[in-house]
């Protein structure tokens, strides 16, 4: 079941729909106050909003905007649905849709709402969504929570390079189209005033892997701002210095290894 916030509706043909779980935005556990506390993904949501603001500043008629869906699968939080909505309003978060589902059928909800990226703190949820072809990324304390002026997206390059053979899994197609849209958004800005910062990290393989990944992303129209070729060096430092809001690989996004 989804409630639409009519004033914040985006153009369905052009908007980039991102679903975030309310558990990630507001944190788990009930508070006694009227309003939830800020959760892990709070800065992420603000960053998405800032991108929209910049896009609209450049062009008030802009249609390529992030459309945010707040998904609640937590039954406890579902009982508090008015509080979710009022918390959103309290913080000035621009949520276009509020969706409430069970753990069993939330993926249906994602598909029905044409969600292009699903962000969750729950590995199971992210995995289920990926299996059904929805691009997903796992949020944890290392990502998401850093307040920053820009939306920071880190591509995990080892997964970006694609083999020639075999059918393309739906989640990979989803990844391609999402990254192409990010690239489209980037092109609305110059280098010095972009609210988006895109990084690439490759772990396995050496510089050739990184070159391949850079080429692949370029062919999708994505402009990579920062690139790190690790050749199996530790990548904790990359995360702690780049501070991505989320990590994308071609299909399942997450901090593996």
């Amino acid at each position, binding site marked *: 079941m989804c409630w639409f916030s009519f004033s914040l509706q985006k153009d369905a043909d052009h908007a980039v729909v991102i679903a975030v779980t309310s558990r990630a935005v507001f944190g788990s556990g009930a508070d006694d106050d009227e309003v939830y506390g800020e959760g892990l993904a709070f800065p992420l949501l603000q960053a998405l909003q800032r991108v929209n603001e910049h896009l609209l500043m450049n062009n008030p008629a802009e249609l390529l905007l992030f459309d945010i869906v707040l998904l609640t699968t937590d039954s406890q939080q579902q009982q508090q649905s008015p509080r979710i909505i009022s918390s959103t309003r309290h913080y000035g978060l621009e949520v276009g849709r509020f969706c409430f589902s069970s753990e069993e059928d939330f993926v249906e909800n994602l598909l029905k709402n044409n969600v292009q990226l699903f962000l969750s703190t729950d590995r199971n949820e992210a995995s289920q969504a990926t299996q059904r072809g929805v691009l997903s990324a796992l949020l944890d304390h290392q990502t998401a929570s850093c307040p920053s002026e820009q939306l920071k997206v880190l591509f995990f390059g080892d997964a970006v390079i694609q083999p*020639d053979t075999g059918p393309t899994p739906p989640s990979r197609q989803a990844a391609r189209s999402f990254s192409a849209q990010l690239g489209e958004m980037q092109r609305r800005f110059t280098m010095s005033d972009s609210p988006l*910062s895109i990084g690439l990290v490759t772990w396995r393989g050496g510089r050739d892997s990184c070159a391949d990944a*850079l080429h692949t992303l370029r*062919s999708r129209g994505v402009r*990579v701002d*920062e*690139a790190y*070729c690790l050749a199996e*060096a530790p990548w904790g430092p990359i995360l702690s210095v780049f501070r991505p809001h989320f990590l994308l690989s071609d299909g399942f996004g997450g901090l593996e290894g």
Partner: protein
Amino acid sequence: MVTMSLDPVQLMSGQVSELKVASSSNGNSRGLWEEKEEFDREHLGLPAKPKPVTERRTRKVEGGVFFPKPENAVTIAVSSRVLFRTEREQKVFEQKGVEEYLRYQIEHENEPFAPGPAFPFVKALETVNARLRDLYPQSEELFDIVLVTYNHAHVGIRLINTINHHNLFIERFCMTGGSSPIGYLKAWQTNLYLSADADKVREALAEGIAAATMFMSEKITEVSEYQLRVAFDGDAVLFSDESERIFKAHGLDKFFEHERENEDTLLDHGPLKGFLEVLGKLQKKFYAKGQRLDCPIRTYLVTARSAASSGIRALKTLRAWGLEIDEALFLAGAPKGPMLEKIRPHIFFDDQMFHVEGAAEMGTIAAHVPYGIAQNHNPKQNASVGK
């Protein structure tokens, strides 16, 4: 300009390339690259084919370690502006701004950069690595050369193309798009950082990372292809600047007096002591296999101290630290240029720009360590005796 006898294409693997690096200030040669075909596919919108490793890598490391762990290796971080010559691109950046600069870089993506001031040093490190791999095939105690640049990732493909063209063994890099790479330098336990930008070098020094600024000079004399030679100034490089402070504040006589009185007190360590230390560790690996005479690493101390007096304290300090230096040259204030010209180091570290410039005038590859009391003075005023 690096002379043709150091042409890396001829040096390694015998890979035939139709592309010669022109002796102009920027390797501006369009050529028949085997890679060009791939970029044409790219531009036609065809999906990029990942090339099989054997096709792309003509130099092989038989049974060796490709990716040593940073904590085991001697990590040398170099910036793109010292590894290669990028003056033309710098000018575009300064005169026309970042967008135009990036557009220019992408347009010239298939043109490799020419070698820069740190290039011979990096080539020599690779020579040492080859010898180490021969003797210790499973060891990770190797030089690990990392490209660390503030450059934007757009330039990444051109840099990778250039690395491929010169057949350099660089598999790790950071392109930070403008933000500080200091976090990575620290996390990768960088043993030496070379950059063209003095501010970044100072930042690294402040974090305890050995670092030096390099400059492109028009005259570079030929250096050895078989033996890495590293020369160090003493005060404020290997040692602290405490003695220099005495000299600056109270003059030469006071300096000598102070050194005499403190002959048995060790000098404090300077920013490059750690680097000399790791060089020594690698040298010992060669000695252990009976290759002392044939060791591909040689270190030099080139100091204005004098052997009979103030030099003694320096030697005692090195000995107490357990550090060997192959040749110690006490110049007693004489100019360093001629001596360095004989040594032909791949890199010479000095804290005083006066000495760095003097060395460069005679074709020595010199790097400035912006540390200590000498930095507060105009280099031209240090024209007299030195220490």
